[in-house]
């Protein structure tokens, strides 16, 4: 549960918008172009990575727009206005798209809860094994604890 919460926190942190960088640096261009997908049809690559001529042009355009004083967010939304949402390499975390982002985590949490419940039940319910005979005066003596520990350690070493 805790791990899932941490994971979810990490995930939310990754969705936060990046702080605007100063215009025209390679990092700023990379930050913008990594958000845009190249639709040249060769491979499923972002504009930052794609090797086709179209990606070259868009990279130059982005650099020029940043130089002209637009913020990275403005540049990205300019491309969305022009080409539609499908230019974005990953969906925005808004509206119906949230279903896209959250469904895997929701499904995993749900499945994990079921699994934990099932495991607890399986581990609790005794099966097949008959109840132990009550220890009476004439019954077998309880074994020495140090002997039990040695047996357990040997089993551990063999089974692991």
């Amino acid at each position: 549960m805790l791990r899932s919460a941490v994971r979810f926190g990490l995930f939310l942190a990754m969705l936060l918008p990046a702080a605007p960088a100063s215009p025209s640096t390679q990092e700023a261009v990379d930050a913008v172009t990594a958000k845009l997908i190249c639709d040249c049809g060769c491979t499923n690559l972002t504009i930052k990575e794609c090797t086709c001529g179209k990606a070259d042009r868009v990279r130059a355009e982005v650099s020029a727009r940043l130089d002209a004083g637009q913020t990275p967010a403005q540049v990205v939304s300019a491309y969305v206005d022009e080409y539609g949402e499908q230019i974005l390499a990953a969906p925005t975390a808004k509206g119906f798209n949230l279903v896209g982002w959250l469904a895997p985590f929701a499904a995993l949490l749900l499945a994990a809860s079921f699994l934990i419940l099932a495991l607890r039940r399986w581990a609790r319910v005794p099966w097949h094994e008959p109840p132990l005979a009550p220890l009476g005066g004439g019954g077998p003596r309880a074994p020495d604890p140090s002997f039990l520990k040695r047996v357990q350690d040997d089993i551990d070493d063999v089974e692991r």
Partner: protein
Amino acid sequence: MPLFGSLCLILALLISAWSLVASALGALTRSRSLIASGERSSLAVTAVLGIASSALTFLFLTDRFDVEYVASYSSRAMPSLFKVAAFWGGHAGSLLLWVLVLSTFSAIVVLQNRHQNRGLIPYVVATLSGITVFFLMLLNFTSNPFDLLGFTPPDGKGLNPQLQTPLMAIHPPCLYLGYVGVSVPYAFAMAALMSGRVGDVWIRTTRRWTLFAWLFLGVGLLLGGYWAYIELGWGGYWAWDPVENAALMPWLTATAFLHSVMIQEKKRMLKVWNMSLIILTFILSIFGTFLTRSGVISSVHSFAKSGVGTVLAVFLGAVITFSVTVLVWRLPRLQSEGRLDSFVSRESSFLFNNLLLVGICFTVFWGTIFPVLSEAVRGVKITVGPPFFNTVNFPLAMALLALTGICPLIAWRRASASHLMRVFLYPASLAMAVFGLLLVLGIRDLSPLVAFTLCAFVLGTMFYEFYRGSRARQRSTGESFLLALGKLIGKNRRRYGGYTVHVGVVFILMGVVGSSFFRQEATFSLRRDQTVQAGRYTIRFQDTASSSDEHMDRFEAILGLSRDGREVGHLRPGRNFYKSFNQPSTEVDIHSTLSEDLYLILIDFDAQSGLATFKYYLNPLVNWIWIGWIVLFVGTHLAVWPDPRERALLARSRLIEERTFA
């Protein structure tokens, strides 16, 4: 010859249809002669398809461009190796390869099991023949590679030059061995359900088939990634392309299956889950074919041929309906016979491993189909690209990695606190030491810190396991350490093979993390004898060279490379202009070391000014991905190698089953 090939395909369809009918009837009526006839027919299908495939190969080698398929994927200038590989360069031929592999596997299954598994085999043959019949119908009625053009063009179009590498010649067959290999455990699962023999015989019988399919699916993925890396020039190896995803999904569920069957073998639990996993794996392998061949999602890999998509979708629906019906019908027989001894045990850690593997598979599936869903719901086209998959899968992959380290340390059945403390001490200390070292080295980014620390933890666990086992053996037998290690592995191939595979997976993850988080890249322009600095490397543009042969013109730049002031060699990135394809292709050159790759591309050369533009990528640790695959390959072979102990267990299970059904 083309007519002969077409006739072979029709004949194969008829025989395999008979094999399906005879086996199914034979299983129902327990008629020995029908069953035997079904088995013999499935052998005959293999022979006929073998002849048809030889015919197609012959047509390629003899440049028979009156055959449409040959004209589309071959040309006179192509070397013979690629003429042979062009067999599976397109949709129809790759479909023929698919059924050839499927029927060959069926034949091997028949030959292996004829005299044992009498109760299962008629159903197995019926299921495999059913699948074969479907693909042969597809081949005969929608995509016959022997179709004629009606005229003879002077030359063929040829195979895309980027595909003309030996890697591309073996990448599709490897994937198909994997995709199709999954059919065998699936057929046994269906046979187990239909015959009611739902013990662990089907699992033990197909264990090596599953491993084999899993290995080749993985090797297919690897070869595709390696090809992309050395050929495409973007410095990466994986792009979450829909068709890459399609091959990754069954690989993930097969990985889950390989783990969870161990619990059925040991505890006779999880029968429904194991059935569901192998059904899911098979469905995903068909779904992969559907994605590639339907054109639903456009991709670099797609064959997009109209009509085929609908037929495949119907088949997919039929497989799902059939499998689920049979499974639900047999649910009463699939009850667990065992129970867990403790919440904290190897068994439960295996279940969490399954949860994560299936979770990652679901993420990949979800991301692959979400664009279609979004368009249906909102009417807006969106893209689900690499950032989505990386972001969502990273935490899942890390949790899985952590489990890989924890799992072997937790005892089967029940783990005690003192025992856990004892075994965790060394691996955890190693992980902490690595964590400290990374901080000292100046790595502050959380994701790679976590990833590398977990890698160290898992490696620590694995080596500790080998060490502890060998020491225990050494103490009890007095053998030398190395002999004890060898005997330990030899006598527990399955376990130590598995551990070796885990070591391979850690290497792969190290490479992926290193090359994704610490990659450096830059574009630069140089005139002759100018230099540029790339990390520890100095690159000097020395000269250009051009050459020409019958297939292509090649232009390359020659650059001298030195690291920390010492000469380490030359790089020759270039561009090829293939004559049959009017397009240039980038030829990457790479200087590889264990710590990093210097990956260099020639982008442009202006002959007038003498100015050349290059791009470099520094990809740290990327070679560990390929090394990891070699380790994984070796580990799988350790686990697959015939093992007397496994054979004895299978024989025992068979005996129990025979007694139950006598």
